[in-house]
């Protein structure tokens, strides 16, 4: 009998470890994109060695929808830049690896990009947790890395007074989005009682929740429920039942679209009518697909409106190439690449150290989601504004723009 107990316990241990990091791992795919190839002749940049740039993101697993959108955005940009003559007269070659949404995979991918592929810079990662894990590797390898969507402040400033010299980003950060969430709920929605549902195993989610709570209490609001769940959960009814009991005006839900879709559906099933308010984890067409009418009338805070006039051309090109609608991550990928391009041009040479120096305090880089001015003290873009998107008739509709981040 002891043997049975032992085997069962060991098995459960193994399985729980496996279930924490979904075994969704197909044979690691290594693809060196030769986007430059076809353009080389027209652009007359023959015999010039391409500038190698790395990218990592999730192409399989939970976050594959976003990773794919981001990769497509970067690839499209690379193609367009190469067609226009490249950077400093050299074509760009993008090397990318699938990180599957797992920290360990990203660390391996980044090491490979730095030491084997010898890229001059890396375009990032869209998740704070993974980006935080990657930052020390970039420091060690002395290769600048530009994050697209990692909004946790600790991504660039892990603790007071410490700055990750090689990590930069093109998105606003969680304190700002927490503050915008609170202000919007207070001023525009006239809410007084807020409930929070958050993902305890996500740096991003916990971050936004903390900053929201702080800003909300300062405004004079009350928090009537504060409930957590774990990554991978599919049933939220126990938490939602507590929330329903507390009868809030708004429910703040700072986590990713799959969990948003499931929890929103279950909230409506339990008869919760409060307005749902989310963050930049929401924008994915899959949200509308899975949640349907459950998220109707909800709002979320995002980095840009993908339907804004400035995006029209990119949107059309993207649709042409991939036959899919552009997602916010595609824009962020494009922006990160444009920032990198500006830095290389400013440096006048495509070398890691020079690019890093150029990124330091780079300003007035026009990108799709606004203008990027990097603050040398924090490596965050200053003055990026958030937009509020409303879900109306099963579509993401632009609602308003907020004052920019200071």
């Amino acid at each position: 009998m002891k043997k049975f107990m032992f085997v069962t316990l060991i098995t459960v241990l193994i399985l729980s470890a496996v279930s924490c990091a979904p075994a969704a791992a197909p044979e690691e795919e290594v693809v060196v994109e030769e986007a430059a190839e076809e353009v080389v002749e027209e652009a007359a940049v023959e015999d010039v060695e391409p500038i190698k740039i790395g990218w990592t993101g999730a192409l399989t697993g939970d976050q594959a929808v976003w990773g794919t959108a981001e990769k497509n955005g970067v690839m499209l940009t690379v193609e367009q830049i190469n067609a226009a003559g490249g950077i400093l007269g050299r074509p760009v070659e993008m090397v990318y690896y699938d990180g599957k949404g797992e920290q360990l995979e990203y660390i391996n991918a980044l090491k490979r990009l730095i030491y084997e592929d010898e890229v001059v810079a890396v375009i990032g990662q869209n998740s704070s947790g993974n980006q935080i894990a990657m930052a020390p590797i970039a420091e060690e390898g002395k290769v600048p890395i530009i994050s697209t969507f990692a909004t946790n402040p600790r991504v660039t400033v892990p603790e007071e007074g410490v700055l990750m010299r090689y990590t930069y980003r093109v998105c606003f950060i969680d304190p700002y989005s927490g503050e915008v969430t609170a202000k919007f709920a207070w001023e525009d929605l006239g809410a007084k009682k807020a409930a929070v549902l958050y993902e305890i195993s996500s740096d991003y989610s916990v971050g936004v929740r903390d900053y929201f709570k702080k800003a909300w209490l300062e405004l004079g609001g009350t928090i009537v429920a504060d409930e957590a769940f774990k990554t991978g959960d599919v049933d939220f009814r126990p938490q939602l039942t507590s929330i329903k009991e507390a009868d809030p005006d708004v429910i703040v839900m700072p986590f990713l679209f799959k969990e948003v879709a499931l929890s929103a559906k279950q909230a409506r099933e339990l008869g919760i009518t409060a307005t749902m308010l989310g963050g930049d984890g929401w924008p994915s067409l899959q949200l509308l697909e899975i949640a349907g009418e459950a998220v109707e009338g909800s709002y979320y805070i995002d980095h840009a409106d993908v339907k804004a006039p400035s995006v029209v051309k990119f949107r059309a090109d993207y649709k042409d190439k991939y036959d899919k609608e552009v997602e916010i991550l595609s824009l962020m990928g494009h922006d990160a690449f444009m920032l990198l391009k500006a830095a290389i041009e400013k440096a006048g040479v495509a070398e890691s150290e020079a690019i890093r120096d150029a990124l330091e305090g780079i300003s007035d880089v026009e990108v799709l989601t606004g203008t990027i001015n990097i603050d040398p003290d924090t490596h965050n873009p200053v003055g990026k504004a958030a937009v509020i998107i409303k879900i109306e008739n099963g579509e993401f509709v632009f609602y308003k723009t907020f004052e920019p981040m200071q």
Partner: protein
Amino acid sequence: MILQQIINGISIGAVYAMIAVGYSLVYSVMNFSNFAHGEVLMLGAYAGFFAMTSLGLPLGLSIGLAMLGGGIIAVTIEKIGYSRLRKRQASSLYFMITAMGFSVFLQNFAIVTIGPNFRSYPDVFPITPYLLGNIAIGRLDVVIFLITIIALSLLTWFIYGTKIGTAIRATSYNPKVASLMGINPDLVIAIVFFLAGATAGLGGVLFGIKYTVYAWMGVLTIKAFIAAVVGGLGSLPGAVLGAFVLGITETFAAGYVSSSFRDLFSFALMVIIIVLRPGGLLGTVTQEKA
């Protein structure tokens, strides 16, 4: 609020029950935990999903197709993997490792062929719940509960009321003696796997409608496995009881203690039960077969 949490617990428990019986069925005859069960569930969920969306079949037919598909896949896995091990009289540890191999393979196979996206069943039931005072009962939950009860009753009748069922039980007690009595063990095992696969297919469709369908959803059946262990691996009523106990424990832990501790409670419950009653709640303590 207590009532609402109990209802939440039962609705989670019903899905666990459907999946847990599959673990128990296979364990009762083969004496190992079939960890490829979750992937059979996932493929069943996809079968039902494509039957509804691509073929446009109604829900009932899609469920039937998913059950048939699940059954066939489970039997195929048995024929390809386990039957060879059986012929070599391998220890149950090898069966378990083979099962994990199938699990990883099928999961990645689904990611590569079907894709990493989440799929959502067409809305079969409106999301407006039945309201009893302040308590909301999802329409879908009622249906799932009824389907689970019906399916489990049929299964019980099959195991305890038919000749084949008697053969299955005989084999589970003592395969050697059973085969001496003229029972064909290969056939019995194929039937058991078919039944387990069919319940997984049904569970997959219910799970898919209730939540969503994706390639690594099989990982979630670990909870159903815990339920089967709590109830007593190998015992069908035990699996069902364990599922409801686990569902309610989880909801109460999440609702009243702290939602972040939910899984801690599920695993702790299992460890406590194994320590106190090694055979599970309704399981009989059997001697380990050499």
